[in-house]
């Protein structure tokens, strides 16, 4: 018995006790093949999946190495059957290869003829394979490359893609680490550097970093690595402009080199930032803007907030397999369960860092999460008790009783920039009036939004009430307190994204506060528990307090 930090479970999860002295070394050893699933404070959970093992094979790790590190760090004997299973799974990778044949273009070549025969017979691959060139080779149309890879993955015979990537149209891009136009010199953070290196080595893939940890810079560094024309897909116009600002400040790119392709403007330049919305807009049932993908010979496609990637883009991404693709996200949990599609179309997860690690390094602000439970008045409880099932969440979430609690919370942080985030417009208007604060919602124009955000950044506006538009991609570095009053049911990633709004490191290293106000004994509490799961698994321990503690005369001292 080695007394290592790792415990291997029968269901192929790996438990890593992080207080163990060898924990760090063990994490480095298992990270290439095991996927981090949960990272609460004491025991992190990794999972061995076929996909993870195959990615490890693709990155040059062999089964022997995987088995060795499992045995080396395992506290208890590892079951023989599991080791055999690992070896067998990894052995399935690369029996088929996608290669560029000088004569026939893209072909599927078999190192194991039987596998090719089995695969060629499968109905799932019907139409993806072309003519049989010889016993070991089948022609593949380049446009089917993505779909074929995905289908082979589902059949359990992942193909090794040796066909490489097109370089795209070259365009000089450098990181301006020396400083530029008044920006102080800076350097890429170590984890950003690691993320870019992992991405570049893998060719395509997804980088998962917490909100506020500087994903834009990972994108910029990847562009500097590619030195080619780049298409950046973002969620909305405001986010697009933030990207543009950041790119101008942090890279050698100038304003003229960056185009915006949105509902307002349709510029195609060496670096083009497009919104998902405009790409998925249809005219007479046809996607009119998908030509953008072919407008230039893009060398790199960056997907911001890849967890929100809409389904039509999924389909189109399948055709882009010859181009390098970088997905950026903080929370790869999709409530539609399509995480697997993201991995197979954009690429596997190339880098993932536990939030608490980044926090420990000081790159995101430490945050204290508090759930405030409000007791409904008897009248509200009565109304709730008799409400229809579909109305219940709205009733509980928008209870008026929450207003004084929100006010008390805002007052508790008199010197901080406070965001109040909610999902129901009526409630936001009530809050706006009650707190005397401006509101940013879906119908607010881009111009007005920019104005309010600028005012908030400058400190002119101290409290801002925002709707779901604030769920992602708005950069409000000075916000230190977020108060969530209602949300989209039990969405885990929404909760994480909202927390992300306050995670930008503060100038003086202050702590960030995240409050979520829920109605006690209602469905609101249940949804809140579900919403918190992702963050709880990232090690954010919610403190639950009663509203009376917030409202009461004797306020507990909060640092």
């Amino acid at each position, binding site marked *: 018995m080695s007394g290592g930090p790792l415990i291997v479970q029968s269901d192929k999860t790996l*438990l890593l006790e992080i207080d163990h002295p060898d924990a760090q070394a063990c994490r480095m050893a298992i990270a290439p093949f095991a996927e981090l699933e949960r990272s*609460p*404070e004491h025991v992190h959970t990794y999972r061995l999946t076929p996909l993870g093992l195959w990615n490890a094979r693709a990155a040059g790790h062999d089964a022997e190495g995987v088995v060795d590190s499992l045995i080396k760090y395992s506290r208890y004997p590892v079951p023989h059957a599991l080791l055999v299973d690992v070896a067998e799974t990894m052995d399935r990778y690369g029996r088929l290869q996608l290669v560029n044949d000088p004569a026939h273009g893209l072909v599927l070549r078999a190192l194991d003829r039987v596998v090719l025969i089995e695969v060629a017979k499968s109905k799932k691959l019907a139409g993806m394979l072309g003519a049989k060139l010889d016993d070991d080779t089948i022609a593949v149309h380049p446009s089917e490359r993505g779909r074929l890879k995905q289908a082979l993955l589902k059949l359990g015979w992942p193909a090794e893609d040796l066909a490489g990537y097109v370089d795209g149209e070259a365009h000089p891009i450098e990181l301006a680490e020396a400083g530029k136009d008044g920006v102080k010199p800076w350097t890429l953070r170590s984890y950003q550097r690691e993320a870019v290196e992992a991405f570049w080595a893998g060719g395509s893939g997804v980088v998962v970093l917490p909100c506020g940890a500087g994903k834009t810079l990972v994108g910029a560094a990847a562009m500097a690595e590619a030195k080619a024309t780049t298409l950046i897909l973002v969620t909305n116009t405001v986010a697009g402009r933030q990207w543009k600002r950041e790119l101008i400040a942090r890279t050698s790119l100038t304003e003229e080199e960056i185009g915006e392709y949105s509902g307002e403007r349709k510029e195609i330049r060496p670096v083009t930032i497009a919104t998902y919305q405009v790409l998925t807009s249809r005219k007479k049932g046809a996607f009119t803007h998908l030509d953008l993908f072919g407008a230039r010979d893009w060398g790199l496609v960056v997907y911001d907030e890849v967890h929100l990637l809409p389904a039509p883009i999924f389909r189109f991404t399948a055709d882009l397999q010859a181009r390098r693709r970088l997905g950026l996200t903080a929370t790869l949990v999709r409530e539609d369960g399509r995480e697997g599609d993201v991995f197979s179309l954009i690429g596997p997860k190339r880098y993932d860092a536990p939030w608490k690690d980044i926090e420990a390094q000081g790159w995101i602000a430490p945050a204290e999460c508090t759930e405030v439970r409000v007791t409904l008045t008897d009248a509200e409880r009565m109304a709730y008790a008799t409400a229809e099932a579909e109305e219940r969440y709205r009733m509980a979430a928008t209870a008026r009783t929450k207003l004084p609690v929100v006010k008390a919370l805002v007052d508790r942080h008199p010197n901080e920039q406070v965001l109040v985030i909610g999902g129901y417009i009526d409630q936001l208007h009530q809050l706006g009036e009650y707190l005397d604060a401006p509101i940013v919602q879906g119908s607010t124009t881009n111009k007005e939004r920019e104005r309010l955000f600028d005012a908030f950044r400058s400190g002119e506006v101290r409290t801002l009430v925002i709707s779901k538009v604030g769920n992602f991609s708005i950069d409000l570095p000075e916000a230190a307190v977020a108060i969530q009053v209602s949300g989209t049911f039990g969405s885990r990633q929404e909760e994480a994204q909202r927390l992300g709004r306050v995670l930008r490191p503060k100038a003086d290293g202050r702590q960030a506060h995240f409050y979520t106000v829920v109605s006690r004994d209602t469905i609101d509490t249940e949804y809140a528990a579900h919403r918190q799961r992702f963050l709880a698994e990232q090690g954010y321990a919610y403190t639950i307090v009663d509203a009376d503690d917030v409202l009461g005369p004797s306020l507990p001292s909060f640092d």
Partner: protein
Amino acid sequence: MTTSLADHLRTLSDESLAALLRLRPDLVVPVPADVSALAIRAQSRVSVARALDGLDQFTLQILDAARLTRHPEEGGTSVDAILALATTGPHPPAPTAVRGALDRLRALFLLYGPEHDLHLVGGVDEVSPYPAGLGRPAAELAPRAAAVCTDPAKLRRTLLAAPPSARAILDRLAAGPPVGTVPPGALEAPATGTEDALPPDLVNGGAPTGSPIRWLVEHRLLVRMSAVKGGGTVELPREVGLLLRRDSGPLGPLRTSPPVVATPPREAKAVDSAGAGQTMEVVRQTEALLESLAAEPAPVLRSGGVGVRDLRRLARGLGLDDSTTALLFEVAYAAGLVGELDLTGAATTRYGGDQQILPTGGYEVWRASSLAERWEQLARAWLTMTRQVGLVGQRDDRDRPISVLSAEAERAGAPAARLAVLAILADLAPATAPTPDEVLELLDWRAPRRARGREAAHREVLAEAAQLGVTGLNALTSYGRLLLADVTEADERADDPLGLLSDAESGEPSTAVRALDALLPAPVDHFLVQADLTVVVPGPPDPTLAGELDVVAEHESAGGASVHRVTTASVRRALDAGYSADDLHALFRRRSRTPVPQGLTYLVDDVARKHGGLRVGSAGGYVRSDDEALLTEVLADKRLEALAFRRLAPTVLATPYQVQRMLTALRDAGYAPVPEDASGATVLARPKTRRAPARVPVATRGLDPLAAPRLPMPRLLGVVEQIRRGEAAARAARRAPAVVRGGAARTGPAPAHTHSDALAVLQQAVRDKALVWVGYVDAHGATASRLVRPVSIGAGYLRAEDERTEMLHTFALHRITAAVLED
């Protein structure tokens, strides 16, 4: 020769004779009457076969050498002759190795006699007819073949001239066995002019070759032994075989020592660790299997065994594949952990069987023992069970699937196969990890006669051993080795019939258990609680901790550690089970090695706060009133004490007694209660008098029950109309004359109306176009009659028109019985 072996045996000392009997124990079952009987038995086919079964490949080859070097007439051979033959090959074995093999053969008395005059026992030739895989000498086979073989130069030339396909056949037969079956037609001369795959026969002057076998037979390189419809068998003469074996030596390739395992050895620690991990896994899976059997016992099929559907269900529940589940099931049965229970009475299952499989009492004992002991019980059961689990799921001779625990999977040789395979592993250096193919190769060398044809079974043994953790990473584990030694020693304890040396009864764990125990993690009594409300037990929990966690948390993942999650439901379950919130806080504080997160504390308090917020009970009846004072009076009323009122709320009293009794008691006490029904409405109750069921009074009946009923006029008119209509119908339906109707024609006195008369009548009717009654027998043999107007007669048929239906009918004339003109 028999006598000479007997003579030889007689000269032996007691010890030597005992040594022989020790090596060949089958000779003494039953004990032979005398030495000559012993000698006869030692030369019998069965006993010799047994002796040969245990020999390794090299020794068998040396035995073959002895057979080949026998003097044709006297049958004797010598050590020198054998040595000379064995060392003629390109890689001659060391003479000492050959001598060693000879010593083994002589010890077994397969060879006997002095070194210069060795004799073989008789049975050997019967057991294996072809020494060293060589055919009989050509002289014994066919004179013409012998003629070819006498001229080595010509023989060589013929061989060199053989076309490649023929040469391939020769090489195959030369490697042994030397007999091949010929497909029908292969020996026929090819039809002239047909295209042939083989080039023309140069030796035979360019004649077409035909099949390669035909070529070989034609050239006397093969001798045809029997002919069956153009096919049959052919044998390769010994001389040709020896010539073909020039490169490998007359006995074929000789290997004095077992093949070497090329796979690099593992670390002993890694092997033990992988095996130990597997033992934990197999014990855990077995326990899960038994638990699910306890929850839902598996019905026994009528034909024996457990059906595939139940096996699948169990496998799905465990998350295992069918074959692993079958193995665990069989092992648990062999270990006495599950057994059949007869279902009494009519409680038959849907399969019609009347037995169920469920855990036995032994399971309780097993569950209480340590992990290593539990594993040992399973592993011992596996080693000794006479079951070949690999057969489960395959089909038997009658193409029916073989089910778990059924008689079809019973194989008496299974334990021997397991021991043979594991012995191979045990004989290798510790942590040597041969691949299955290498193990089979070793088995093939060690006892070729036993290994051949059992490769599948041996592979199964290897797979099962890995599954059970007896091996790890393909190598035998240290504790597996000890267990194996223990099991094989058990046989040798026969020397100790009184069990004096045995420690089995001493209650001490066996060495294997102790070795395994050292590898397994010790139980832990603490856990780690995290903010996401998961509870991780970093090792196997001790029984009390496991019991506590079963109540307060949901199980999430098992293995080396176990992960549980505290949920609202699990906390409520704990509260239901009698824990208070404080108990739960104390439990988490005591067991957790990390600070208890505030979220968990809050969850427990929150659930506890709500726990019991609703109270449910049963009552026979209640009393409610808006007047609280009145209820207080009722509660305090001494006369109503017997009703045992309990005040549920200021306005409600409850009693365990029924409403009627309460009503009576309350009324007796002078109150004025009103009963309510389930919806709260007042139940009005007037005093009821009892009545018998209603009866029809006599007065409503008619005066004279026997008088005919009187009919009113409209009804009478209706009756009349009905009669008239019937009359009209009867008139319309003219009846056929009696003679035409069935039966009457034959019995009645009207011979004139015979068949020929009928024909005459019909012919006349055709001319007159008159209506005729025709009587006939229909296809079903029934008689019928019809009024028709004949149209024509011809070709044996009458065609006639039925005026009423306006249809043309055709009657077969031979079926017409009568015909009468309509008047």
